């Protein structure tokens, strides 16, 4: 906790984006998380991504559940919409909101406790339904808010601050998402914004469910020797498997890549993901090979990061359900509520 809010004075070189806002305009209230929390860096990365994407905060809905991570939507896009759901139930809220108002951009923030323990069932279904939202899983391996018990993502052999060693198998959100048919799977690290920001931008623009698993060290309860989610351990074992860049449809491509070294994947809205560095045995469009690659590298003790899997063209849950394409609030009342006769006709179908 800090006693003064971040002063509003800003650097004069701060630029404004296409909607006339500076990066500072995307901030929220002061963080009340522990100093040095990885989550605060992710908040800063979300702010940067939203600024770079020219998002208008009023067109964004922030969703979260319960936990340290789920507090963070207060700290970014202070003028956006938001819903702080019951523990682990953010996917339901997101699904409902997205179904009724697809015009908003949905940014979900959750943690390893909220997503992989109490909310695991919800997470599985929101993945398989391919709800159009980005889901940021701030993963620190412990329950920080209750003083550092192991969470479901703690690795076997990882040591808690008080010395206990975890013997239970972890749930790996990236592998889980792949098996459930996720269309966008990424992993990153709170301490690497150069990687995280483009991934978040691509995830926000991806049409469908985008899971971004972010290793986000807990400075208070999981940043010690023996932890496998500390700043030091993550830096030492992190392996950037895929180097991906994201370009908006409006921006010209300025970077030059060696021919053959880059694979461009165009998203439905025209923006482009450039895979710059991809290992030989890897193919971010092939679910089975990605799965095998991750299993193999993790077996060797590495933490592979990057935009790992991308299927830009899969139908999202609104396509599957064939719902109306406009937001319900924009439907004329006669269409939204067509009256008794229409109801009678519908009921007749079921008789």
């Amino acid at each position: 906790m800090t006693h003064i809010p971040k002063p509003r004075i800003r650097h004069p070189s701060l630029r404004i984006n296409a909607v006339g806002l500076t990066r500072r305009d995307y901030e929220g209230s002061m963080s009340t998380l522990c100093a040095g929390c990885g989550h605060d860096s992710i908040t800063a990365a979300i702010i940067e991504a939203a600024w770079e994407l020219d998002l208008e905060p009023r067109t964004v809905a922030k969703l979260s559940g319960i936990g340290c991570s789920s507090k963070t939507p207060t700290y970014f896009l202070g003028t956006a919409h938001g819903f702080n759901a019951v523990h682990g139930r953010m996917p339901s809220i997101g699904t409902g909101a997205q179904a009724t108002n697809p015009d908003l951009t949905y940014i979900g923030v959750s943690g390893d406790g909220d997503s992989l323990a109490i909310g695991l069932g919800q997470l599985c279904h929101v993945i398989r339904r391919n709800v159009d939202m980005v889901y940021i899983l701030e993963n620190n391996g412990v329950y920080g808010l209750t003083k550092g018990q192991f969470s479901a993502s703690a690795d076997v052999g990882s040591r808690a601050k008080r010395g206990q060693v975890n013997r239970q198998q972890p749930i790996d959100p990236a592998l889980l998402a792949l098996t459930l048919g996720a269309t966008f799977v990424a992993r990153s690290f709170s301490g690497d914004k150069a990687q995280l920001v483009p991934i978040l931008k691509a995830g926000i623009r991806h049409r469908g469910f985008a899971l971004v698993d972010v290793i986000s060290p807990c400075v208070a309860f999981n940043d010690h020797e023996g932890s496998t989610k500390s700043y030091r351990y993550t830096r030492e074992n992190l392996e950037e498997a895929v180097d991906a860049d994201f370009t908006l449809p409006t921006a010209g491509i300025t970077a030059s890549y060696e021919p053959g070294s880059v694979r461009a994947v165009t998203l439905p809205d025209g923006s482009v993901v450039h895979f710059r560095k991809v290992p030989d045995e890897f193919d971010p469009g092939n679910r089975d090979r990605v799965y095998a690659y991750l299993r193999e590298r993790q077996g060797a003790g590495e933490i592979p990061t990057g935009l790992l899997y991308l299927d830009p063209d899969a139908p999202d849950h609104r396509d599957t359900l064939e719902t109306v394409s406009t937001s319900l609030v924009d439907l004329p009342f006669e269409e939204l509520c067509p009256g008794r006769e229409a109801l009678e006709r519908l009921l007749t179908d079921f008789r």
Partner: protein
Amino acid sequence: MHPTDVSDPHYYHRVVDCQWGCPAHTNVPEYIRLIALGRYTEAYMLNRHSNVFPGILGRTCDRPCEPACRRTRLDGEPVAICRLKRVAADLRGDIGDLLPRIPAEKNGDRILCIGAGPASLTVANDLLPLGYEVTMYEKLERAGGLMWNNIPQFRLPPRILDEEIDMVLDMGVALQCGREVDSLAEVLEEGWDAVFIGTGAPRGKELDLPGRWDAPDQVHIGIDWLQSIAFEHIDSIGERVLVIGAGNTAMDCCRSAVRLGGADVKVMARKPRPLFKASPWELEDAEEEKVEILENHSPSRFLVEDGRLVGMEFEIVRWHEGEGGRLRKEVLDTKVIPCDEVLLAIGQETAFPWIEREIGIEFNEWDMPVVDRATFQTTLDGVFCGGDAAWGPENIIWAVEHGHQAAISIHRYCQGTSVRERPPYGQNLVSVKMGLHEWSYSNNYDESQRAEMRYADLKERLASMEVEAELGFDLERACQEAERCLNCDVQTHFTDQLCIECDACIDICPVDCLTITWNGKEAELRTRLTAPAENLDQPLFASVGLPHTGRIMFKDEDLCIHCGLCAERCPTAAWDMRKSELLIPYAGLEAGRQHPNRKQAEVGP
């Protein structure tokens, strides 16, 4: 870049822009905090320690600190440092017990100061507590130099002036007024252990145009005219007055003329306004008092009819930048402006007809004595020189600094040690952390605009030379203005081995000062920081390689508001807020040793 060595006192000193900009290195943020705490006496003494004349300077200083102030780069207006200095002087209590004690037993060395202006008074101020006997020869009838004979009373009331001059004289200066030196050789024969020349730049520049000498009673040299007012030899002036020149002396002349009966006073400047030498606030004050300031008017002749000055002819000019950046004028027109009197304020120079050229003091091509920039010694051992006498007109605060440096040299010279070897500066660095999120300074950024000065009623002040124009800040304004200070001496201090590169400091910094990245050449680095570091006058801090990745923490000092949020959000206390205090050496006092001028030396922020 090489890692920054913050143990070098000058690194953090440079971050304190005002103190760095002040020739005498006055500890500005500390005295502003003392004012905010209501500790005016201590604030005054802290000032006096460096600048000797806080009450005088609080009204008349050229304020090199203010354009330097970091606040200017953030919201366009510097902290009103000078006016806060005056607050300390106005509200202070009795300081009798806090002034240095003068030993009854003298050390046997006798020092002569020629001229009794601010430089000489500073020499005396520094040497008397060490047991020296200091004598001053002053050609006029009282001490103070230009502080009393050139600065009009409505800017500097005599009681303020007398009080601060007397503080020095009362330490035991043997002042001989009315003693004009006309031969340095003779003076040297009197057997002084060291001589300090602080005779200022007493000769106003002449404007030798056609007609200049046809009506001499109506054309005056500005500084001589001001001096005549101080002496009460002059108490009126013609109705229409032209002041030639656009420096601060011109401002004093025109504002005095308005008070002595000038109904139509014009300042005539050759150059356009941005090139005026006068401080912007003095120009504003003059205009407030109905003085008209005309730019691009180059005087060409005095118009005299029947032995009476009736006007002056000016060329209306436009300036072009010529070769080597020199300005070249283009004459567009000529214009006659009628007037009754003319005041020439186009500069002043030193005059040394009284120094014999064969006694060992070398003179340069401008007929000025050759004075060493570091030791203030002339080419004759034991003869020192400072203030305007050394390198031409500067200002009071420079004269004070010259006095301090010359006193160091004189002391070393009398002790038989090398004057060339200068005592080193030191630094105290103390954490200001009081608790988990608590600092012992006001760390929030106050968005207030600069407080406005209060002035005496225009009619009232123009009626007399004696009514002080500026009323000073009241307590409310002083407190409000003190909060605008960014406490630049509370430094963001980095301990590299503690950093875990969590980025918390970078994310929280409101002005994007911080970056962790790979090392490079400074010029290239400046372009790829979180915010570009385009102000090359401001240093970049560079750490050594950080423990986790070997990358470097960089800080662009330029716009840091010293809010302490980096330190608050740092989980490992790698960032800490530490107050740096520059320890300035004075004569007989190595840096860091208790100065007799400063009995209550350690004051918390």
